């Protein structure tokens, strides 16, 4: 370390990562028990448990709880946790050794796609895999949803990534939104809310399954509950939610929508302050986006003679798939790759919207669009009245100019990264002699970087990402990781200033 001393309290980050890795034993034991119950091989999970315990112990040994966990250390810890948990999550797929995901890169893709609640899959033949391995995919997504909730409500709002600090000021929650000293309490409230919603989803799906569709058994009810509130999108069924009765498809929609609603505001809603949610402008924007895109897609489907779903079917497919993509879940009720270009391109536009800040949603998020649009409208006004001082307001509260700048920066960065990834996919497909159109490349870039799930063409909802080259998949793994934790925490790790100044 001659010349440059490291100025990051990495011991704190490493220690925290070790704690999280050790705690992974708990979720891993769920598929382990399931494998015993179904008399399937248990080795994949035992191997993962051993590795995570060993890694956890190693990290804790290097960790030092005395070192203060500041913003820099939090950035490092967040990046490390998401990377290493995905790596551990990939172990059962490799050890099971069946199908496409036996390959380490594919296994890592599947696990990263799961942990980042993306839902893009490289599976080709679902029937090859054991029920416990398929359930593990669902569990990873549920964990990813929980992780991002805690990250979003407690950590990101505190260190202010791309305007995320807005959430704090906007929801006025001295009691549930502080990193310290109440982080444990925040985590607890969010945890119990998330758990409650998941349990409600299990009960709803299971009861509807009893009434309408025998394929929605307890296994499938749990599996889908795990990935709907998490807005994640994996399904043990090759046909996704499209495999089930229409009533069940309708029932999934509200859970996706709630999963993408600010959990802090849901907490207030339940605790006797419903107006905080109902008067929230971001909530209006989010519901408005859902309504607008659903109607346009429904109209496009009605006008297209090739898709004959009937009235209920058209509405259901429009609402379901728009909700699935806007909330960044990534389920499908039908193979929308076969739709007319108009409807498909609307779905592509939906990918960039996202749900509310402080939820399990991914993508750019409604709040950022709302602030950017309001700031733009303000700029039009000040073009006419150059001396007017007009703060941008969200739900009546003025937004700092610095936050607006952060949000503009975040939007620009997202668009640039999306564009570069598109270029990489097209060029790499050319190199590997694969037939990928520009639109399919754009869809695949948006869906992985913005953590949505399915794309178009080969990588459509009923297709697989295994059709891309290994290099492309490698790049996608990195970008899912960067995109999920709001870009900045990963990018700062690659600056010199982060480590030395």
């Amino acid at each position, binding site marked *: 370390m001659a010349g440059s001393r490291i100025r990051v309290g990495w011991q704190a980050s490493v220690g925290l990562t070790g704690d999280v890795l050790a705690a992974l034993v708990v979720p891993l034991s769920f598929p382990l028990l399931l494998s015993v119950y179904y008399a399937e091989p248990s080795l994949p999970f035992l191997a993962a448990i051993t590795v995570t315990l060993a890694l956890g112990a190693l990290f804790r040994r290097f960790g030092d709880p005395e070192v203060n966990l500041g913003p820099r250390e939090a950035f490092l810890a967040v990046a490390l946790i998401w990377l290493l948990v995905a790596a551990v999550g990939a172990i059962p797929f490799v050890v099971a050794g069946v199908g496409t995901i036996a390959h380490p890169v594919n296994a890592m893709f599947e696990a990263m796609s799961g942990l980042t609640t993306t839902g893009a899959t490289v599976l080709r033949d679902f029937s090859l895999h054991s029920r416990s391995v398929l359930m593990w995919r669902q569990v990873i997504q549920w964990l990813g949803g929980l992780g991002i909730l805690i990250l979003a409500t407690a950590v990101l709002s505190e260190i202010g990534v791309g305007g995320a600090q807005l959430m704090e000021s906007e929801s006025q929650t001295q009691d549930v939104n502080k990193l310290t000293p109440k982080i444990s309490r925040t985590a607890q409230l969010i945890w119990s809310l998330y758990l409650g919603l998941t349990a409600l989803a299990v009960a709803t799906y299971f009861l509807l399954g009893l009434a309408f569709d025998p394929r929605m058994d307890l296994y499938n009810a749990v599996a889908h509950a795990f990935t709907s509130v998490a807005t994640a999108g994996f399904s043990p069924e090759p046909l996704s939610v499209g495999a089930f009765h229409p009533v069940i498809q309708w029932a999934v929609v509200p859970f996706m929508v709630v999963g993408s609603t600010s959990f802090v505001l849901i907490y207030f809603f339940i605790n006797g302050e419903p107006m905080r949610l109902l008067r929230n402008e971001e909530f209006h924007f989010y519901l408005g986006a859902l309504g607008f895109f659903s109607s346009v897609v429904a109209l496009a489907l009605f006008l297209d003679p090739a898709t004959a779903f009937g009235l209920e079917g058209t509405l259901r497919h429009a609402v379901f798939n728009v909700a699935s993509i806007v909330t960044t879940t990534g389920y499908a009720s039908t193979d929308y790759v076969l739709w007319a270009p108009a409807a498909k391109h609307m779905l592509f536009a939906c990918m960039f919207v996202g749900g509310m800040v402080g939820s399990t949603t991914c993508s750019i998020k409604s709040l950022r669009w709302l602030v950017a649009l309001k700031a733009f409208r303000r700029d039009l006004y000040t073009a006419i*009245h150059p*001396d*007017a*001082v*007009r*703060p941008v*307001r969200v739900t009546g509260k*003025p937004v700092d100019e610095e936050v607006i700048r952060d949000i503009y920066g975040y939007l620009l960065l997202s668009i640039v990264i999306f564009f570069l990834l598109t270029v990489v996919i097209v060029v790499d497909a050319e190199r590997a002699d694969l037939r990928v159109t520009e639109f399919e490349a754009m869809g695949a870039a948006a869906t992985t970087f913005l953590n949505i799930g399915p794309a178009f063409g080969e990588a459509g909802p009923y297709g697989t990402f295994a059709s891309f080259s290994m290099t492309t998949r490698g790049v996608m793994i990195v970008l899912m990781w960067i995109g999920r934790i709001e870009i900045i925490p990963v990018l700062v790790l690659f600056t010199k200033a982060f480590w030395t100044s």
Partner: protein
Amino acid sequence: MHVVIVGAGEVGTSIAASLASDHEVVVVDVDPDRAEQLKYELDVLTIAGDGTASGIQTAANVDEADMIIACTDDDRTNLVTCGTAKTLGDGFTIARVKSTEYLRTWEGNEGAFGVDFMVCTDLLTAQNIVRVIGLPAAIDVDPFASGLVQMAEFEIAAESPVAGQTVSEADRFESLTFVGLFRDGEMIIPRGDTDIEAGDRAVVIGSPESVQSFANDVAPDTTPDRADEIVIVGGSEIGYQTARLLEEREFTPRLIEQDADRARTLAEDLPNTIVMEHDATDTEFLSREHVDEADIVVTALRSDEKNLLVSVLAKRMGVDRVIAVVDSPDYVTVFEEIGIDIAINPRTVTAEEITRFTYESIAENIAVLENDQAEVLELELTEGCRFAGRSIAELVEEIDARFVIGAITRNHALVTPRGDTVLEPGDHVILLVDSNSVSEIASMA
């Protein structure tokens, strides 16, 4: 009455002058020359010294005083003066403050700082400006319950849309009560089916917003409506408070402030005001923003010279009404002679408010109507008084006097009186009473 006035500036001198003839007045001022001068000017006892010091206060006989008025230019001196006075005796303390922060603290906590009555100069001035802007048709307007309630008297002109309506047709507003109608010099207690005739004078009590709306019904031509353009020049506390009060009355004023940080703060605090950051003496800017087409311009800059300049500019550009805040009382006439429509002096406004308060009564705020035919009283109900615990319908039944309850404030919030409203101790009741029954009613509170 033995009155001690601390601070012999414009406000203190003016109050002392009005009280000197009927009361025993002692004036305290730090400046010995000023004290000496006042002794001959007003024929009052003066003491030179620090009014916050208990030695000086003892010398002024504060312990036996009925009233202590702290009206120096400094807020903290005034608050400490009142606090010190409370340690010596039990006189009624009045403090003049500029900061609305202190006022808010005082309103939220009874007797805070040892102050019994607080007059906030900037807020009072802003209220005055808004009254002048908003209710040009009213003959008389008086605030009650620290500005929460307003009493207004209107003359109903023949062309007024209200003329020929019944009281229940005219009174469309939730928090407004029709308390009295004067016709040919006779008072009528209005009922729902009483007809309003041209030439009547109507007295209403209610929230300032509802009084504003009613004024619009009575005189739609002269009363400014929401579409009228009001421009406030200068983001001083007076300018800010004026904009805030106008926002409450659903106007959308424009405010011009030169300082960037102050402009940003104002814009954040005033969601329905368009704040502009520019020098208001720049004529090019004024015409670019069409200030010449404004209906009303209020100048509230920090210096009289600038206010004068902007007022004259606005007047020359063709603004209908220009209202100027003038800090020095001597310039008020100068402003009005030049052609500025109304010049308001914060010190005069403060002195008037304190004097009015001392003149009338300590516990009651009153307005006298129509050659003393009726009075509007504000009564604070005490524990176990005749009013407490009874509904308004019961009181009307039991008490053989002509009175109408116009408004009630409870914990600094307005309660609209209805027949079944039950009064509670601590309530402030604003009511119109026939002059013959004033002392009888006042003794019941």
